[in-house]
């Protein structure tokens, strides 16, 4: 395949501006110098952490992982990782963690959230909330944050699920922790949790997740209305602000626009769609637009990915809020078995009529990546859809070689061509 000149071949989605504005406001509010006087506090929380409880208590949740993605997109994550390494953090650990430590320990100012508020890194936390339903790494990461900031850390422990059935004692363990979580927050905020507000926040969360799931499902259309980079940007509110009514309104707007695209048979890319690929794992943040744009020039579009799908889990209501929350927060993609991942990738690849699968093998994230060689073989056996692994990282550009990656992708595209003929 010949190299093609770099030109923008993706279609801009108007509602992404609303998402950006909303994120800007969110970060701006977190920097409010009178925040404590207004009875608010800041919590840093992991991406799989139970955020609704914070929203209900007037605590602003901030996500070091999301900050990592922002620093990555701003092409500053490698520098920040190096700062962390110079303070003794190994280059082998998750680059989100290194980016986060780097931003805290950087002698210069941390990555400006320039796209967002132009006033520096994440606001200093008052407390830390860590859910290990995404990986074990976050536990060590937050343990160290607690040491650095000398602030309280609440751990929401969700042992990895070893099969599809969740035992009653497992749920009981998690539900008890939900109660302890409330007690912890009440003590930190010196006020009672209002269960009515909490229920309302969970309802907002549920609606946001439902809308997000509907938006993702529109990707089944041909041509695909959204590409990977679109979804990676649009996902920010469902990660960080999912308990708010603003997120619900925002996603209603996004949904309308994407639906219109589908109705008009307008694709996410402006060139004819030739290859539909599934993306597995976190994106290459430091090369986000270039990467997908370069592939889009070859007619490659990604109608679906496992990463943004991870926020589409359903909140089932049984009438016991804490128990329902416990079930939802354990039933997370990365907390489940390899078999579950194989099944899900197979289902998604078929449902979204993919021609191939790209597995981003990231040394930063062992939980997401280790096992991908098996997934690749088994998914192809099940679906007859070929896939390939590309080596890289979401935030550390030193672990990424564009030449090698593009060669592997070209080989996959050729294989797809051969299978078609």
């Amino acid at each position, binding site marked *: 395949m010949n190299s093609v000149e770099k030109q923008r071949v993706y279609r801009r989605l108007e509602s992404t501006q609303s998402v950006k504005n909303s994120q800007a406001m969110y970060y701006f509010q977190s920097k409010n110098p009178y925040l404590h006087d207004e009875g608010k506090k800041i919590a840093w929380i992991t991406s799989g952490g139970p955020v609704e409880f914070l929203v209900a208590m007037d605590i602003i949740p901030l996500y070091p992982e999301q900050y990592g993605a922002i620093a990555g997109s701003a092409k500053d994550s490698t520098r920040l990782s190096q700062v962390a390494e110079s*303070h*003794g*953090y*190994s280059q*082998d*650990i*998750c680059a989100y963690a290194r980016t986060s430590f780097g931003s805290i320990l950087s002698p210069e100012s941390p990555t400006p959230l320039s796209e967002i508020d132009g006033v520096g890194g994440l606001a200093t936390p008052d407390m830390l909330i860590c859910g*290990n339903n995404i*990986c*074990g*790494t976050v*536990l*060590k*990461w937050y*343990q*160290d944050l607690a*040491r650095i900031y000398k602030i309280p850390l609440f*751990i929401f*422990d969700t*042992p*990895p699920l*070893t099969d599809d059935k969740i*035992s009653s*004692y*497992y749920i*009981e*363990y998690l539900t*008890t*922790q939900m109660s*302890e979580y409330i007690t912890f927050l009440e003590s930190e905020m010196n006020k009672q949790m209002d269960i009515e507000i909490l229920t309302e926040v969970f309802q907002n969360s549920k609606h946001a997740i439902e809308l997000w799931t509907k938006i993702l499902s529109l990707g089944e259309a041909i041509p695909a209305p959204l590409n990977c980079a679109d979804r990676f940007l649009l996902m920010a509110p469902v990660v960080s602000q999912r308990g708010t009514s603003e997120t619900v309104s925002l996603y209603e707007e996004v949904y309308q626009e994407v639906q219109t695209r589908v109705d008009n048979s307008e694709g996410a890319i402006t060139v004819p769609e030739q290859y539909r690929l599934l993306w597995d794992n976190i994106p290459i943040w430091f090369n986000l637009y270039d990467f997908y744009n370069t592939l889009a020039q070859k007619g490659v579009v990604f109608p679906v990915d496992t990463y943004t799908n991870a926020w589409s889990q359903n909140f089932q209501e049984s009438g016991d809020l804490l128990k329902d929350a416990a079930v939802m927060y354990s039933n997370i993609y990365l907390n489940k*078995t*390899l*078999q579950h991942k194989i099944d899900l990738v197979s289902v998604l690849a078929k449902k979204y009529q993919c021609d191939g699968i790209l597995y981003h*093998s990231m*040394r930063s994230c*062992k*939980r997401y*990546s*280790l*096992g*991908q*060689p*098996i997934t690749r073989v*088994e998914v192809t056996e099940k679906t007859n859809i070929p896939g390939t*692994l590309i080596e890289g990282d979401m935030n550390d550009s030193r672990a990424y070689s564009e030449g090698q990656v593009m060669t592997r992708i070209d080989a996959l595209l050729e294989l797809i061509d051969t299978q078609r003929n």
Partner: protein
Amino acid sequence: MLSDIKSEMLSHPLEYYLENYFEALAEFDKQSIPMIGYFTNKTPVELLDAMNLHPLRIFAFKHPKSHQGAYERYIQTFACSWLRGILDNGLVDGYNDLKGIMFSTGTCDSLQNVSDIWQKVFPNQLTYNLTFPIQSNTAASKYLVNEFKQFISVLQDNFGWSSSFNLKESIQKYNLKRKILQNIANFVSKGHLNYASLAKITYVSDLLLVDEFTRLFRDFSAPDGKSSSSQEETPRLLVSGGMWDNWKLFDIPEWDGLVADDLSFGYRNFNYLIPETDSLESYVKSQLARIPEPTAYDENHRLESLGKQIKEHKIDGVVLLTMKFCDPDAFELVPLRKHLESLEIPYLNLETSPDLSNLAQLRTRLSAFSEILQ
């Protein structure tokens, strides 16, 4: 014959059993001793013993037939070197003599994923993943009691009920083993035995039947006499780290001053005793009270314990041993360093893999460290 193994035990140096690890497995199998292989020091060995199963630790010793790199079909190169070696061994049927493999996972992402991968690669072997809680409070104890009960019922389904199930007796046996190891560790601290011997004895203790080990080592005593004056001048070292399991690393003169450890399969595997009762609740409680591994959340317990050991053994310097690509070790390094700095104890970080591919470099750095301490 098992009896041959026993007699060889007495006539061969300890390394015989470590060097011939895979042959020992085959011998146990021939003797119809049902073995369950385990990976971490959290494994409830007493429960396995009570079920008449022999808990046998899985080491990353290289199988004579293993092809280095065979693992790449299943896991990527950035998995820790320890797990890669083990998968290589498994792929040449190195662990086929085991009736089952058990993972006791906490927060090590690599181990967690490999537990799933193992089930895929070796579908005919019973693979069990016992997931430990991070917390150690009442809710966590309750959860773990149920996890253990579930585990027992799976063992029962696969191997039948052991009518002689007696948890208390198994705890007594393992407590005795731990006391023997504590005693031997004392000899090392006093300079009457070198650390490599302790490592070998500890490793062998996780290989032999527990009764056999206690019979052989119950009256163990190190050569009598005071440490020589040259030993007294040698700086006293402690090695701290995770799942290190290659004794050969310690069998070099550069470790002469090594008198204590803080390793998963060393001190942290024998420093505790469990209340001798039949109560699963009490068993779980004492398991959760142990010094946390690098994989676990730990506010201060491990650091405090390390500080105590440094005082007790009059340590001059600490070697922080990390396994290549082991995230938990890498993360733990930062608080450990800070803690040692606050105690004004010099330290050295050595990173390596079970195949000791950088041994020459490690030796140079170790001797330079000892020189600085002198």
